[in-house]
């Protein structure tokens, strides 16, 4: 009996972690959409147990109650590429024998072959066998700001190395890591990583490394096939987990994520995968969207990093970064005392002309940034949004709102924000919508999602409520927005 009790305890312990809080949660008086009647939502063990009109659900005796009067149910968002650098720092070569006191340090022994074949230098940046879930690094410090920005799911990707390994899709909930995992070994992350002085140092070199990697994987596959067919004579191939993953990528069994910086890189990557069955997702800044037609043709998905362009023009800056406060820099400086000097005048005219040119270029950059989601949408490319290392978590929603303003349809923007497009490889692991029997993961908003005034008041991730802001006090609230 005692043993049985211990066994029950052992089995129940992990279940308790998976379900997080066992205390039920009752959210009262929230609206599914503006103008619709309010509902109550009962959440137990991370799942939505029941939804009913306000006042109809019986409150369990131990339930935590949250009054959501005036709040709307909103979606949670997916940060589709959280990059973290896991690369080991290059270490200085170690001399084999310690130098005697005062003796000059001799360089390590190297053969001429090391100078001729520098390709092994690339191996430090080629880790198809590595899994992000095996590291502590995906438990990123930025999860709290993400939750506050309504981001409940994140795809934690390995570093932008030639091949950094596989990513992990997890929630951003403040619970132990193992309880957060939605998909543990998702995709294989590649990049055209080039570094000065080390092979490969060019884009074409990086592509050559990938071509060689693919050739190695194909050989491994052929070897395995020959071994399984032959009764004797073919030795067993060595266990190469990394190559096995690359094989899966080439067969389309595992998606490949390629982090690109420019449109040219993206196009070269599409060319690299031509002739394979690879399911490709390109991750990079909005300017990649210029290759929208090529993505559509290759049936590739895109993760758009919300990389807000740096602009000097105050008008453009206000357009990008809401809400605006009157900026002092926009005020014109008073003319200086010697402005009548013809040389100064000429100089000022030249500066004005240069500023005009800069403004025109910035305008183009901003336009490319704003139109990127719409371009992809019009081309029929599935896409999602991601934050950048330098940006903020709320860039995600801001970018989607800007894209909607620029002409992207609201459903398309919502799909991109929530990673709901079924053509994207991570969409199946995400439990979308608020329905009985499904995971309780949603936000509570104080207004429509696409309004700049709307704030996220609370976020529920796997049934765990986190209240983020003061409840709305009706009219006269402050204008919302980013930065």
């Amino acid at each position: 009996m005692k043993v049985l009790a211990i066994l029950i305890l052992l089995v129940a312990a992990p279940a308790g972690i998976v379900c997080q809080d066992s205390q039920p949660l009752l959210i009262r008086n929230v609206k599914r959409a503006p103008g619709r009647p309010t509902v109550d939502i009962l959440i137990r063990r991370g799942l939505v147990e029941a939804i009913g009109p306000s006042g109809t659900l019986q409150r369990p005796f131990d339930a935590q109650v949250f009054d959501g009067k005036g709040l709307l149910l909103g979606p949670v968002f997916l940060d589709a590429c959280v990059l973290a650098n896991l690369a080991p720092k290059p270490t200085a070569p170690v001399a084999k024998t310690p130098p005697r006191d005062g003796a000059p340090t001799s360089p390590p022994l190297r053969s001429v072959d090391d100078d001729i074949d520098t390709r092994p230098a690339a191996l430090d940046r080629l880790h198809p066998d590595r899994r992000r879930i095996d590291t502590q690094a995906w438990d990123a410090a930025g999860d709290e700001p993400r939750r506050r920005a309504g981001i409940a799911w994140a795809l934690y990707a390995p570093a932008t190395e030639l091949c950094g390994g596989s990513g992990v899709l997890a929630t951003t909930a403040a619970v132990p890591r193992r309880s957060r995992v939605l998909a543990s070994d998702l995709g294989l992350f590649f990049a055209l990583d080039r570094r000065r002085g080390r092979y490969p140092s060019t884009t074409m070199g990086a592509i050559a490394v990938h071509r060689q990697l693919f050739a190695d994987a194909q050989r491994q596959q052929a070897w395995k096939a020959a071994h399984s067919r032959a009764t004797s004579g073919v030795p067993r191939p060595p266990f190469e987990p990394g190559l096995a993953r690359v094989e899966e990528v080439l067969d389309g069994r595992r998606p490949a994520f390629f982090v690109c910086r420019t449109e040219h890189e993206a196009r070269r990557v599409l060319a690299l995968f031509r002739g394979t069955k690879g399911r490709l997702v390109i991750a990079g800044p909005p300017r990649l969207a210029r290759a929208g037609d090529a993505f559509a043709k290759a049936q590739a998905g895109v993760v758009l990093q919300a990389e807000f362009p740096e602009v000097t023009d105050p008008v453009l800056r206000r357009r990008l970064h809401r809400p605006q406060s009157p900026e002092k820099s926009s005020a014109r400086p008073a003319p200086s005392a010697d402005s009548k000097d013809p040389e100064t005048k000429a100089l000022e005219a030249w500066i004005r002309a240069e500023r005009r040119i800069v403004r025109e270029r910035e305008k183009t950059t901003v336009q490319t940034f704003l139109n990127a989601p719409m371009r992809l949408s019009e081309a029929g490319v599935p896409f999602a949004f991601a934050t950048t290392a330098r940006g903020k978590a709320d860039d995600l929603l801001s970018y989607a709102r800007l894209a909607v303003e620029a002409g992207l349809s609201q459903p398309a923007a919502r799909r991109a924000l929530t990673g709901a497009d079924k053509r994207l490889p991570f969409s199946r692991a995400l439990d979308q919508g608020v329905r009985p029997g499904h995971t309780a993961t949603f936000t509570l908003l104080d207004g429509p999602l696409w309004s700049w005034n709307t704030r996220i008041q609370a976020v529920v991730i796997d049934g765990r409520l986190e209240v983020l802001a003061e409840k709305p006090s009706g009219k006269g609230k402050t204008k919302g927005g980013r930065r």
Partner: protein
Amino acid sequence: MKRIAMMLVLVPFISLPFAAQDKGWGSGHVLFRDVIVHMGTATRPFLGDVLIRSGRVADLGWVRDVPDGTRIVEGRGELHVMPGIIDCHSHIALAGGLNESTGPVTPEVRIRDALRPDDPSIYRALAGGVTMAHLLHGSANVIGGQDAVIKLRWGADADGLVYKKAPPGVKFALGENPRRSNRNTPGADRQGYPRSRMGVEQILRRAFQDALNYRDTWLTYKREVSEGSGRVPPRRDLRMEALLGILDGRIMVHCHCYRADEILMVMRVAEDFGFRVATLQHVLEGYKVAEDIARHGAGASTFSDWWGYKFEAYDAIPYNAELMRRKGVVVTINSDSADHIRRLNIEAAKTVKYGGYPRNLALQLVTLNAAKQLHIDRWVGSLEIGKDGDVAVFDGDPLDDRSKCVMTFIEGIQYFDRRSDLRKRGGNRRGPVDSDQEATR
């Protein structure tokens, strides 16, 4: 009223070429009427017509039957039509670095993996009458990467630029560049190999010996398979495969070199391993060993008057091209520069004025000879019936430094028009914006 109506009818036809200038305009059917035709062969220039149908030269001389839908460019005896200029050594339209300089042997990298089709240099080259360019890897390593021959189809994507009929090539480099490039490499704990011209030769020999060993491995495997044993294929090595391509004659060798001794060295190494150097690039001391170059069968791609920028480039003379030609070497003048590529016709003219090159053959230096060196002279390089309709139109003799290129056509499609270009630029004299600046910002 009649005049207005006529203008209304004409305006769309006049503006059409300019409206779609950015991606090339036309159906590939063009007639150049009453123009002075430079065929790019030894034939003297003549007054006549050139008809291009479906992108190919269909007729020359006096063309009587003009098919429907053919655009007519009236020359009035003033415009000069010549084959599109081919630059035999260029580094334009590349992104992400042109020198995989981290090792002395890198033939596995390919220029066509790094093409940048929106490089403004393409458009600038078109403005100089250039229609094709041979894009080479940098010269920092002894055996560099694979090249790409492109047609300057401004507006096309990277794959649209590549001229697929051209056989692939690999860049070799001798002398100071591969020796110097090992110095001060960040992260390197000491200077690499090679450090001397002797070392360069040994790198070449060692690389090809490795390639022969690699071939033996595969031959052994194939023999074992045919005998029913050993069914595990050897590892495919893309580097060795490229080197084997050279040994098998499938991949051409374009060798950056200056000094006579190393020119002889590289030809000797090639002969030892049973292949031929396709072209010697720069080859400023080629005149000293012109007979040997001719005997080996290599072409020579040099400069008209550009030297003295490093020690190995001192002993150069303007008669280099002519002296090599006299010995039977196929000679070209190249740009190796995004700036010089805009006036290669002038570079050819300088070879006439200062180097004694025959005037009637001068244009071949940048057209037919370049096509011969790249093994594409069956399709491009001269205005002959059946060849591609790649045409540069000048407002005067192309060998006159006052002449300007006014139109450039590739396979009958117009990619440059001087008048519309000037009109479009208006107050902005800067030309197209470099999009890479935006990309790197």
